[in-house]
């Protein structure tokens, strides 16, 4: 239990009758990097704003470090750092001033690490914020968050606007934080990033949690594509359990299969295949199917 950093229970936010977040139950373990995914408007930012106490839940609640995220905000915020997707920082301050201010207000900073991060992110701190490009402004928040060495990092699409080189630096920083025992809650649309960084992935759709687990587990749950070529007529496989989308063109057959593959394999190998190929879904295919999960159920 003391390894649980963040836990939500029935966390719900309604705007009128519309549920932006619908009864979310989620647990994040210490040292874990949790990817928080979902299509636009799924409720990711709403979740994060609830966790940060910027908005109040309609029902349910959240605990961070075992403290109530709403009632004990100040104590919670001492130990977490947040990076919004689009920060509005004060245009009249310079980058260095902003970093100084954010550190003072947060109350915790590893100044040496901060200087190192400034170099690694190739950040020029003496410009005024209004003169920075979007990506450079984003770096300020990232540097401030990582330099705080906070126990929990809450990141909401933190790399929007970063170039590929900086995206790489960001990934290194997340992995360093993880090695350091910090916990990361990462909302993202960038699948590569999620694959490279996240231990577990939670997928949200229209305010509801539709899937949570490791990428491995999710891959297992979704369809594997199988294709084979035969010397003679391909065997009939449509009746087999878990098999769908069967296409036959001449001697060639493709299909998808969910769950145990042994029955299908037995039938195919009995028909003496010339070639055989099975492929796990790509990350894109996996997410597209999960993002669209509800539509499929409806149709």
């Amino acid at each position, binding site marked *: 239990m003391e390894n649980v950093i963040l836990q939500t229970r029935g966390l719900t936010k309604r705007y009128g009758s519309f549920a932006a977040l619908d009864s979310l139950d989620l647990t994040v373990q210490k040292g874990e990097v949790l990817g928080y995914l979902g299509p636009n408007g799924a409720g990711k930012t709403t979740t994060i704003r609830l966790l940060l106490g910027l908005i109040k839940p309609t029902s349910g609640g959240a605990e961070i470090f075992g403290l109530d995220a709403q009632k004990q905000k100040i104590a919670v915020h001492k130990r977490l750092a*947040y990076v919004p997707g689009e920060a509005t920082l004060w245009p009249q*301050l310079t980058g260095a001033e902003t970093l100084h201010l954010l550190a003072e207000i947060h109350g915790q900073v590893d100044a040496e690490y901060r200087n190192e991060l400034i170099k690694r992110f190739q950040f020029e701190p*003496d410009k005024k914020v209004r003169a920075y490009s979007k990506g450079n402004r984003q770096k300020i928040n990232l540097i401030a968050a990582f330099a705080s060495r906070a126990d929990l990092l809450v990141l909401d699409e933190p790399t929007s606007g970063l170039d590929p080189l900086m995206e790489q630096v960001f990934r290194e920083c997340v992995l360093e934080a993880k090695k350091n025992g910090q916990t990361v809650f990462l909302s993202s649309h960038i699948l590569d990033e999620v694959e490279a960084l996240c231990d577990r992935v939670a997928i949200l759709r229209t305010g509801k949690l539709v899937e949570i687990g490791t990428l491995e587990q999710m891959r297992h749950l979704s369809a594997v594509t199988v294709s084979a070529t035969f010397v003679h007529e391909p065997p009939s496989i449509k009746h087999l359990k878990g098999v769908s989308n069967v296409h036959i063109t001449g001697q060639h057959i493709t299909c998808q299969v969910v769950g145990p593959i042994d029955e299908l394999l037995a039938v195919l190998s009995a028909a003496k295949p010339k070639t055989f190929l099975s492929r796990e879904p790509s990350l894109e295919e996996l997410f597209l199917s999960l993002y669209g999960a509800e539509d499929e159920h409806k149709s």
Partner: protein
Amino acid sequence: MSIKASTVFGRFVARRSLKLAIIWGGVFGLLVASSALAYATAYTTDASRAKIASTFGNNIGLKVLLGAPHNLATTAGFTGWRSLGTIIIFGSIWGILTASKAFRGEEAAGRWESFLSGQTTMRRATAQVLGGLFSSVAVMYVIVALATIGLGTLHNIQFTISASLFFAVAAICSAAEFLAVGALASQLMPTRAKAATMTAMTFGLAFVLRAIGNVSAEFHWLVNVSPLGWVENLRPLAGSRPLWLVPIIVFIIAISSLAIFVAGKRDHGESIVADKDTATPKTGSLNHLLPFAWRLIRPTTLAWCAGLLILSTAFSSLAKTAGQAFDASPGIDQALSRISQQASTTGAKTFLSIVFLMLMTIIMLVVANGVSAMREEEADSYLDNLLVAPVGRLRWLSGRIVLMAVTITAMGLIVAVGSYIGTRNVHIAAHDLLLAGINVMAPAAFILGIGILIMGFKPRLTSPLLHALVAWSFIIQIIGSAGNINHYILDTSILHHIALAPVVSPNWRVVLTLVGLGVVGCIVGMLRFKARDLESE
């Protein structure tokens, strides 16, 4: 890019400026209506009209504030002068604040950037935003025009439709002029505060030129070189002179075009008068919340303080001459001064009371803007940066309220000092002026409390409601002074309750009540703010 997409930003800006434009349009309409009704019902005989015409017509103080009157013996002439004089001032202030917000403010908040990432140029974007703002002015025009036309149909008023339409044109001219100036200043200056200050200084110059021109025969031509003088020269409802629209329109088009042209000469986030984009960090003020908050509001606050010092000194220095006009005019003032042997000071004090009323209104506007700025920090999510750190909402808000209270106190003292400097030639007791300065603080404290209350319960209405309240109070007070007005309506004006020091001594019960209500408003508003969701725009 489709036509729709290319105007989307202009429409966005128009929407954001529209609420206040509608409120001000409505307030202007009310102002016209109540000026006309008050006059038409209070002065029904030719004799009474001749009397009022000579009282107001010779009043230098009012000439300075509202411009030179014409045809004061008619309802139309009185209405045109009284309401246009006030509208010019408030319309200009709206223009100054709206333009600097739409250009510099939105740019700093990063909204220009996301728009510019579409296929548009700085020039086109600037033109669009100007278009959006001018369409808000058009809405203002429609409201004022409808109000004036409706009013004109009354049997005791009878404005012609064309006169009403022309009046509405005159009513929106200063707003349009200073929108254009504000747009240009926003291209030149690097920050919103500096752009607003530059525009305000232009306004001040135009105002002073017109004022001098109006009181001195020798320099009368100065009226004709001031953008505000041109508006006055239109003389709506008093023998309209539409030719003066020519310099106004030329001015607006020229300044707007210049703004668009200059916009193309600079990059996003840059400005022509370059403020250094790099700076050595000054971190002294960044270790604690309160000094940081002060650093954020310092430029605006200091600019207002300096402006108030100049205004209070300048206007009160006219007290002697204006006071003589008061003393010379028939009425209570004269009787009073004869009896009390204070011939030289009563008139001057009466004039000073009008000056203090105006300064009081300006300070209330400063507070309204200050509270709106707090709300904007929330709306534009600057506040998120603080609240996700271990900073409580109450700590943040109470710090801002304390700073605002200090500002109010300072401003009350500043206008007392300014009027003291300005009135050295009439020898008004410093003590009286100090009390008048303290008197000024009360309605401002009340506005602060109401502002925090609105911010707690209806954050998106903070700026429009608060500005409307200030404008309403001022207008009702001005109109109330012209005669017959329902006392229930008068009661809704904060300024009506406050004694007009220094001609009479402050009513301390009212002062304490207003301050007390302000404190209650702050507390209730803060508690509600703590409990609610943060709301972005």
